[in-house]
């Protein structure tokens, strides 16, 4: 029996980048197939070519043995290929039923048949073994349920192949379990599912086979059961096993702290509705980790320290001088740098070039009259492209065309160019592949050795533990603990978050 989906020799180039190079992929009916690869490996491009968002340069696609070439996602849907994207692409203010049927609502002489819509929506949800009030507004349900509604919508058209692009990135553990239960039902129904994720655990929990992409080429297709985890990682990043293991074992030593006088000293700094007053010291040559759950006040703290928000109480001293930040511009004057949590919104300038993005902060601190000459700009850009290993066809490439990891590196370069004394990194490794992650971690350690003070914010505890000499634990917008040196461990951080929560009266 031919596979449900068969892709052969698919190629796609963008100006200066070969995004897909003769990629093959075969998905069987009734299987969950993981598509793995670092950022920029070509996963999204493959999906977009498959669903007709981009035209292909070469190659063939067969669905149930029949040659197909959809020109738009709509056409792909009609053929039976449905996609659910990372961000829920639904309309929060419409009802569940409307969301499931919008764009293909049953009509009767031009008027919408609401009864039929509700019935159809219920049927679609039933396939996922889910019963919701389909007339309720979508936004009244949790993100996890919304995700499932999105899947139900995808199934409403007679789908044969379901593509899930990082469906779990905003779900918690129980929600993920719930989602996987539904996926197993669909698998039994004989649906082919392509599953894209960064979480290795989930790949091993649910998928049957794995196709690994790297730099636009297919590395191989493996049965999940027969591929050890460490091999998968090494296929993805294209390095041998020894290197991967070494990377996992690096642990920051504390020997580099230059002086006991903090570079930054915050006392009872806080802002109503944002973060309770807290003390925070960061010394030169030290990485301070900021740990806590989502919404615990990590980003809020960073915003106060960088002058994006103004604290309404407490003091901040830099090198023993009291300071007041009115805007990022003031903070930058004191040699503070920040890479934001949300790269797209507050980080990159998407349609400017790599060079322009790199020089931006340095140029801003010089003002508009003291312009860096083109030659200086090019030198600066080339230096950082080389030293940070930014993968770009040229320094004049538009930043939008780079992968997430490389965009993050461009941002790091932008700030390193200003030679900061304190570097605040808010989730610098989020949504980044393993290779780039390791490089960024290495960079942080080398910055520390050069005597920089670093404030490191991350949701991944193991990363915080590996990087920091001191960890400040936040909970419910409050500092609840501070761990140093030997006391730092994932266990200790988790206990600290948990124990303090039990102090609070049960609601």
């Amino acid at each position: 029996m031919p596979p449900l989906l068969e892709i052969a020799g698919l190629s796609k180039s963008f100006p200066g980048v070969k995004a897909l190079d003769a990629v093959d992929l075969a998905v069987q009916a009734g299987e969950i197939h993981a598509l793995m690869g670092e950022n920029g490996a070509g996963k999204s491009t493959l999906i977009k070519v498959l669903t007709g968002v981009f035209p292909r340069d070469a190659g063939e696609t067969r669905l149930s043995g029949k040659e197909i070439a959809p020109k738009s996602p709509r056409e792909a849907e009609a053929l039976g290929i449905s996609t659910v994207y990372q961000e829920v692409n639904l309309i929060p203010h419409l009802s569940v039923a409307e969301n499931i049927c919008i764009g293909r609502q049953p009509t009767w002489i031009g008027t919408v048949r609401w009864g039929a819509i509700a019935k159809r929506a219920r049927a679609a949800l039933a396939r996922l073994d889910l019963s919701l009030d389909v007339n309720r507004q979508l936004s009244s349900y949790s993100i996890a349920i919304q995700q499932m509604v999105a899947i139900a919508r995808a199934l409403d058209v007679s789908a044969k192949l379901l593509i899930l692009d990082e469906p779990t990135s905003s779900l918690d553990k129980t929600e993920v379990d719930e989602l996987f239960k539904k996926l197993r039902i669909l698998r039994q129904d004989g649906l082919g599912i392509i599953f894209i994720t960064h979480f290795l655990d989930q790949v091993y929990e649910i998928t049957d086979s794995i196709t690994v992409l790297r730099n636009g080429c297919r590395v191989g297709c493996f049965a999940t059961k027969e591929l050890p985890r460490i091999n998968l990682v090494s296929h993805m990043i294209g390095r041998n096993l020894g290197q991967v293991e070494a990377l996992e074992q690096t642990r920051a030593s504390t020997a580099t702290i230059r002086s006991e006088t903090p570079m930054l000293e915050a006392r009872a700094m806080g802002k109503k509705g944002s973060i309770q007053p807290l003390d925070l010291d960061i010394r030169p040559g030290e990485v301070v980790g900021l740990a806590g759950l989502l919404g615990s006040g990590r980003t809020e703290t960073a915003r106060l320290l960088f002058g994006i928000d103004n604290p309404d109480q407490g003091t901040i001293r830099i090198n023993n001088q009291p300071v007041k930040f009115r805007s990022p511009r003031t903070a930058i004057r004191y040699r503070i740098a920040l890479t934001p949590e949300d790269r797209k919104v507050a980080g990159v300038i998407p349609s400017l070039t790599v060079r322009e993005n790199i020089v931006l902060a340095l140029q801003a601190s010089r003002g508009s009259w003291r312009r860096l000459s083109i030659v200086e700009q090019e030198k600066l850009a080339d230096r950082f492209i080389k030293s940070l290993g930014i993968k770009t066809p040229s320094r004049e490439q538009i930043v939008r065309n780079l992968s997430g990891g490389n965009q993050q590196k461009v941002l790091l370069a932008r700030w390193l160019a200003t030679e900061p004394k304190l570097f605040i990194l808010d989730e610098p490794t989020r949504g980044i592949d393993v290779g780039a992650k390791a490089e960024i971690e290495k960079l942080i350690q080398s910055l520390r050795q050069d005597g920089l003070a670093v404030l490191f914010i991350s949701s991944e505890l193991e990363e915080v533990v590996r990087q920091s000499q001191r960890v400040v634990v936040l909970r419910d917008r409050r500092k609840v603990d501070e761990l140093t040196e030997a006391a730092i461990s994932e266990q200790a951080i988790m206990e600290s978050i948990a124990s303090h929560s039990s102090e609070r009266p049960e609601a």
Partner: protein
Amino acid sequence: MSDWLSDLIFWIAVAAILFGLRRQRIFWTVGALGLLLVFNQFFTPGFFHLQVLDGHLYGSRIDVLNQGAKVMLLSLGMVLVIATGGVDLSVGAVMAIAAAVSSRLLVTQHLPAGVAIAVALGVSVLAGAWNGLLVAGFGIQPIVATLVLMVAGRGIAQLITEGQIINFLDPTMVYLGNGHLFGLPFTLTLVIVMLLLTHFLVRRTALGLFIESVGDNDEASRYSGINAKQVKFLVYTFSGLCAGLAGLVACSNIKSADANNIGLYLELDAILAVVVGGTSLQGGRFYLVGAVVGGLFIQTLTTTFYAKNVSSDIAPVPKALVIIAVCLLQSEVFRTRFARVLSPIEKFLKPVGSWLPRHLPTTARHDSPKS
């Protein structure tokens, strides 16, 4: 010099410029202008006629340069405003204010022309700064903020002229819009000087980078330490100055200040010039030379319709059609879809162009295309 010889020289120059620009974003703008001229060469008798009178050049092409000066001046300010993601609807009304102020000072106050011009420009800068304050200081949407002055500005101009049409004969003021320098209209010199000045202001300093950065991603620019408010305030103020200059030229052209009609609907021509010049209304990358060429294109179009006796009531329709065609030529999507039709033209242009210089010195490296 006989006509055919000067035509030949002209066309060689046009071809040379086009080849020089073939890799630049503004190729399509200049190309559209070239096509329009080709049309006139064949179908508008007398359009290419040049004659020398009292040592000054006269002819339709010279008229285009002279009449187009207003839109070209406006487009210099407008392109920067649009690059920050905004728009300035008030430039037409600011033109009327500048005209009213200068002629009032000249005629009823009997002040010297230099003072009148300086005060008029000062008032225009203030008007621009007002827009800048509303947009940057109070965060009002640019369309709404500048709409205020677009509507109120003509009223202000009426107040200044006390509802009269003020006529003047002051030689300095008349020279501004009618005089000649080096045998060419003085307005041409004015446009070139302003273009160079603007180019220096944005490309020899880092202001251009900041403008593009703010227009492309306001929030990220702020995080990078760019004073986005200052940048926005500056471009609206500068747009006011450009509008003031255009207003002075406009009233000089007709030797009177008519608060109701000076600069009427010219804000729309200026916006069109910017768009035809390759700058997106969403902000970000901007093309200074493109905007000026866009202004020239729109004026050529208008003059062509005059020459073909198209009634001014109907003229907007063909004008709109031509502008849509130019915008389509610039669209990536359109060009890829119709690559089969367009590529033979490009192929034809390439071999002839290979012996010409790669970049013309007038185009800054920032004007280079994406890829």
